[in-house]
């Protein structure tokens, strides 16, 4: 593998950092070189959060170059759009349909754009889009907070997954408290199956 870049984008509190750490830890388990960038502190408080996972022998920088992401994992539709500049032309976008309206929308009485509009904008960058009902599946797994792992499961069902499922499971066992492990494993499976069975929107 020359270089593999994943951009994770969403809103503070959605479990983006854990998702990135799971992918990074899985890569380490496979003996790969990896960099995972995080954002902490003030930037996290309900604001836009972006994390990058970069895998590859020669990778040094923490952040992905514009137009060079192989995968864009969108935790929230508007935040997916905000990170589109990182997507390569062949990028795979996996996006949760769970909308979190920014407070600016309410204050200015603006409408949250429709899913059609959002997908149209993504299509300007790449045609490869999978939309996952991550919140619904996470709730089904037992906790809405497991959306992050649903999305990793969805990614694992595609050719674009840079690490093995066993490595992800190993990473989950290491990073998730034992009492929440079952929910997370279930969330992974639900995300995986929904893509495998083609039960994605659009």
């Amino acid at each position: 593998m020359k270089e593999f870049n994943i951009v994770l984008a969403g809103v503070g509190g959605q479990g983006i950092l854990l998702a990135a750490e799971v992918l990074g830890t899985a890569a380490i388990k496979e003996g790969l070189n990896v960099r995972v960038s995080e954002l902490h502190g003030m930037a996290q408080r309900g604001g836009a959060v972006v994390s990058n996972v970069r895998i590859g022998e020669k990778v040094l920088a923490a952040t992905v170059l514009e137009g060079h992401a192989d995968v864009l994992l969108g935790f929230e539709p508007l935040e997916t759009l905000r990170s589109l500049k990182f997507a390569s032309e062949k990028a795979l976008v996996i996006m949760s349909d769970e909308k979190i309206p920014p407070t600016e929308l309410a204050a200015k009485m603006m409408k949250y754009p429709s899913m059609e509009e959002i997908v149209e904008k993504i299509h300007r960058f790449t045609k490869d889009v999978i939309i996952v009902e991550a919140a619904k599946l996470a709730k089904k797994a037992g906790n809405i907070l497991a959306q992050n792992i649903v999305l990793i499961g969805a990614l694992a069902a595609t050719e674009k997954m840079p690490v093995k499922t066993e490595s992800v499971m190993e990473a989950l066992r290491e990073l998730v408290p034992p009492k929440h492990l079952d929910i997370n494993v279930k969330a992974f499976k639900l995300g995986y199956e929904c893509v495998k069975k083609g039960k994605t929107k659009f």
Partner: protein
Amino acid sequence: MRDEKLSLKLGRSLLPNLNVLLKDSPGKRVLLLGNEAIARGILEAGIGIVTTYPGTPASEIGDSISAIARDAGIYMEYSTNEIVAVEVAGGAANCGVRALAAMKHVGLNVASDFVMTLAYAGVRGGFVIVTADDPECYSSQNEQDNRFYALLSNLPCLEPSDSQEAKDMTISAIEISEKLELPVLLRTTTRVSHTRGPVTYGRLVKPNLKGEFIKDVKRLVMVPANSRPKHPVLLRSVEKAKEISESSPYNRVVREAKDREFGIISSSSAYNYMVEAADLLGLNVGILKLGMTHPLPEKMIAKFLRKYEKIVVVEELEPYLEMQIKAIAKDYASDVDVYGKMSKQYFPREGELSTRMVAMGLAKITSRELPVNFGKVDEKFAEVARTLPARPPILCAGCPHRASLYVMKKVAGEEAVYSTDIGCYALGCAPPLRAGDMMTCMGASIGTTEGISKVIGENTFAIIGDSTFFHAGIPGLINAVYNNHKVIVAVLDNLATAMTGHQPHPGTGMTGMHTPSERILIEKVAEGCGVKYVRVVDPFKIKEAEAVLKEALARSGPSVIVFRAPCALMVVREKRRKGAEVVVCKITDKCTNCLACVKLLGCPALIVEDGKVEINEALCVACGLCVSVCPCNAIECAEMD
């Protein structure tokens, strides 16, 4: 007070499982955050005492050590502020115990008074001062380049570029410190501190906490007669440090080029961007990587300068290396051209660098074509971005600061001046609350309010958090009392150092070692400082808070109002931990969609769908503030009944 006992149990259970740091398995390769890698370095260096004041991007160094301190046999504390942190660690280091103090870049401003003179006195045990800089101001009020503190203080400085180096350099910094008997600066940036990368473990070294104080007035008492002769001693140490720098494994030529045209010198995160950018452009260049950046390895740099016709210096923020490299060039290689950000700006002097920025600068200098058409990507993205609503960080749903700021504005209005401080509540400067007219550094709200009050005569508020009050608020408060300034000091006490990860402070009743300690109450401190009007209110009890504020405004001297309610994040996490249901507010048929709640509070849990107000159930924590402000009594909250 609601859930005041929460703070006692607070947070400590929230810390991640960091036992992985404690494993003595040399050769093991793990994924660590730069800050966690420094924590591992602390364990491998046998450091006995670790002090800190939390601040992004440094916080996880202290937090990691706090989580494992007992098992590791380390003493750790969250000190009241950074200067106390370096004093505690510096005192111990002068008894021969290895010590480390960690802080964010602006924390070193606070600590600098002690550090500048400790450089004269020196240390006996190794002493590392970690300064975590924040290019791009991700979580800071400025982006100062603290490498200049190394020049200013004459202290050695190491600059890691990744997690592995962060760990290794922590150990090397201790060794250098003991060799030179000087404190050593370890300077990271946000991207080093907050990037995970592979780290290969070394052996754990048992920490020693048993010190011995050797009385030595000439060395330790910096009266003029003693400090004067210490200055040349310090300067001689810099010369010795230079020799260490010349042979340091962190200063090395990582690439030689057959083509003698370009040589690049770089350090820290900039080095990472630079290597990737050079490869992107397919450049055949020599590369000198610097990890010990004070003092610089003059001879090594001179040799590198003589090898190439043109030298490019790639560094983040100030031209710290470039200035010195130009001076070295003047002495050793006067015909070499040095490109960077001084005479002509090839790289920005402000903000964070990126592979793209470095590639663009290098392309210009080397007259190459960029292989990526960034302009095209920008153009395409600009169209998408144009209609994207902003999503800046905001006060969380249920945040007690929202209630405090709302009621202050309600009582004192737009005319009053609200000087705010460093903490989550600074986010209240944004609409709709707009309660924040000035903010500079820790504790400054109180002093600036006094000056403003003196010359404008209007109502003035100092808004300051609990941890910030202990950190730097007390001298300002004493000044207000003694000089009788008419100010209202609103201490927003959410029972934690919330912004940086809910670390304990003297008002919480818990220490960094997880031992309970008697709480120091802010109201008692205020009374002790001589404030005559001190009140404690629950910010969610709007009517009571209003009455207190009106009383305070009518007074001619200073007053202190402590708005006390725990951080909403702590309350929710505690509920989740216990498996309790998080209830939410409900909007009833009485709602006329007047949008008062939305317009007054800016709560993220209040959303508007098709012109109708709705509650975002994933975010609402039933604080009930919207219930209090709704003019139609249309919002219900089970929690409040």
